[in-house]
């Protein structure tokens, strides 16, 4: 090293940093919303409302879930083509985070700081979204209808801008647990669950209903294990060795599929009970068929018990399903028409209702107020819980069972649960479901 080069080193550090960052700065800060009379908030112009989301378009959670955002966008397009909400169209910017929390942070900061979105809508995933709720609330950005049933989103004091949407996993765990207790009395139960708030909330719900003596083992899995040579074979071998006759699985679809195939490989034939988010039969059949080149498919799903709070996609008589199918065929015909599409459209519809209720010139606060006021009715067969004190969404589910072709049928009436702990599980009140066309902006 010559002395000359070491002398100039730091000078160049300073000069270089300044030049390059300066250049970066000059290219930066394209302004926020325009200054039209109706630009009432960031992301709102006279003719548009821009909202954003982080979604697993790639990665372990992509099978199935990657359809949700396009489906929501299709619903928004349908509403936009019908005149929008208060004359504004909804522009939906969703970005891929690969179900990787580190990416979620980057993507959400980009949406909030650079794209200046009005709100974050339907950000998907427990491990992912939990890393941005603090940030969004500090920045006072509405964080509506998180696509996850963890209980984290229902904390109005700490996170006044965050709202859940689907029934939380505790509710689901409770109702599934009660169903197991009543319908598979005396059988040994084993749990398989994703090792985060998604799985743990589900386990808490199950534990509140099942006798501890019937639960033989609880096995957590990590999504990264799905990509390892040994997969989750160790967990299922243990459940098999412990003599589990029922396996309750709080898992994403890819993990459910791997569990089913592993069971096949090791000769383990328990009754499967799978949480709503991991049991979409179209997604699972696709995964199983792909994994085994058609050697196995829907027949592995035969008898699988799960639950739903939306109409069954196979129920073509339901006006919502008719409408969703119409929107699907028009805007996203290349995607399968399955539970994920239904989910995306339903959540988008609730968002449109909230935006509609937020008034002619919506602000971030008026949007929050509108959701807290609640009273939304849509495709869901159970009521929402939204209020000033609760930011939780749907309050219950209905048990379903799949047959050997993967077709679901309802096994029970809808149940709702009264509270988050050991509170009772009651039949859902009637009239929770709305009709397409109740809201002027959505023409069936």
């Amino acid at each position, binding site marked *: 090293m010559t002395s000359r080069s070491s*002398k100039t080193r*730091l000078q160049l550090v300073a000069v270089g940093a300044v030049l390059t960052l300066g250049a*970066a700065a000059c290219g930066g800060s394209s302004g926020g919303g325009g200054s039209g009379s109706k630009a009432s908030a960031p992301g709102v112009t006279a003719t548009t409302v821009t909202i954003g989301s982080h979604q697993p378009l*790639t990665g372990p959670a992509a099978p199935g879930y990657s359809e949700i955002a396009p489906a929501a966008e299709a619903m928004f397009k349908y509403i936009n083509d019908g005149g929008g909400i208060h004359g504004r169209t909804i522009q939906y910017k969703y*970005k891929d985070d690969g179900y990787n*929390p580190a990416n979620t942070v980057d993507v959400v900061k980009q949406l909030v700081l650079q794209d200046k979105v009005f709100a974050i809508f339907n950000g998907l995933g427990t491990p992912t979204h939990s890393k941005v709720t603090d940030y969004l609330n500090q920045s006072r950005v509405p964080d509506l209808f998180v696509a996850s049933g963890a209980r984290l989103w229902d904390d109005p004091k700490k996170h006044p801008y965050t709202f859940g949407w689907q029934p939380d996993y505790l509710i689901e765990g409770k109702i599934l647990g009660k169903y197991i207790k009543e319908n598979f009395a005396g059988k040994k139960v084993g749990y398989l669950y994703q090792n985060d708030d998604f799985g743990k909330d589900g386990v808490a719900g199950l534990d509140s209903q099942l006798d501890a003596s019937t639960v033989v083992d609880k096995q957590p899995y990590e999504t*990264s294990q799905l990509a390892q040579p040994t997969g989750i074979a160790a967990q299922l071998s243990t459940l098999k060795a412990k003599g589990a006759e029922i396996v309750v699985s709080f898992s994403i679809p890819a993990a459910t599929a791997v569990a089913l195939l592993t069971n096949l490989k090791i000769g383990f034939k328990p009754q499967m009970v799978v949480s709503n988010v991991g049991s979409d039969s179209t997604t699972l059949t696709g995964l199983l068929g792909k994994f085994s080149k058609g050697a196995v498919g829907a027949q592995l799903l035969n008898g699988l018990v799960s639950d739903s709070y939306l109409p069954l996609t196979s129920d073509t008589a339901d006006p919502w399903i008719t409408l969703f199918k119409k929107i699907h065929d028009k805007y996203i015909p290349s995607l399968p028409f399955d539970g994920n599409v239904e989910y995306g459209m339903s959540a988008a519809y609730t968002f449109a209702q909230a935006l509609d209720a937020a008034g002619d010139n919506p602000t971030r606060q008026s949007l929050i107020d509108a959701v807290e006021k609640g009273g939304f009715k849509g495709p869901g067969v159970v009521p929402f819980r939204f209020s000033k004190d609760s930011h939780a969404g749907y309050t219950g589910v209905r048990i379903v069972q799949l047959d050997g072709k993967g077709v679901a049928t309802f096994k029970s009436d809808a149940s709702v649960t009264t509270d988050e702990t050991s509170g009772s599980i009651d039949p859902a009140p009637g009239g929770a479901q709305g009709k397409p066309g109740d809201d002027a902006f959505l023409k069936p």
Partner: protein
Amino acid sequence: MSVLTLTRRGPLANTLVRHLAFAVLGGVVLFFLTSTVSAYRDFQIANVGYYVVAVAGLTVLTGLNGQISLGHGALMMVGAYTAALLLERDNPLPLVVVLLLSVAVTAAVGALVGAAAARLRGPYLAGATLAFAVGLPGLTSHYADTFGGDNGLNVLTGPPPERLGLDFPPERWQAWITLTAALITLVLLANLASSRVGRSFRAVRDDEVSAELAGIHVARTQVLAFIISAACAGLAGGLTAVVSGQVSPGAFSVALSLSILAGAVLGGLGSLTGAVYGAIALVLMPSISSSASDRFTLSTDVQHNLPLLVYGALLIVVMLAAPQGLQGGVRRLFGLLRGRAPVTSVRNESVTEVSVTDPER
């Protein structure tokens, strides 16, 4: 150019004073820069700050000492998790202390890795550090109760100090934190490079046998270089935890390790100035890729992977065509402006020289 000549006189002739003076100058400029740009640019600048620390650390190891590491992403992970676990407590220690502990813990891990590394050469060292990078994230799943598995940990960092005002953008505050760390790191490393220790690093890099004959303890020197480099990675990791507000294994993939290496190679191995360019490139690439794909409506798959292609191409092109990297090019330009042939001064820092650690020799 006047800046460059000014430094040769007066108190600035002292290396430490000169480095400090430029750090202060850089700090002042960055203060004004961060205060004028948008919050999103501040966020990017905060990212540049920790990448500078990481890339500079690897530059010392590979450029000055001739050891390669594909495991620096994993070392950053050690620092990040240390910070996250310390900040998780009810009464967290001051941030400075937390970051120093991140440095200390990672340096300790670096000492372990370095002790093994000192006995390995070239491809073997690369392979072993790659195994480290691939394997370490598995620990978070195995000890999920402590490390939170794939879910990771939330990192609680308080808002900016109140005396900056309630509406002070948190991104700017974070940029200040990482830039301060980066400037301090650069001053320390620049002094190290021009010190006796730095000379022994280079001596070992250039020829181990001669270095040994000259009374340098080769293995000890290599371990020391690894520790210093790991300490930088640990600091960078602690800073990522603060900027990102979370730690999770997905953030510390093999791709991170390789992009840090790409940043160091791009900047020209052995040059701290180059480390700054490398770090800036690492932050700008994804956002350039993002705006390019917006403009040309490329799919997200293309958008996500474009930076990888560029890093890979850079590694190959730099090795095949311009082993001095970007900084070599800049120096050559300065050299030309001064009417000197710069080639001799650049040669020492080229990878061609680094590679004298051929195991077969």
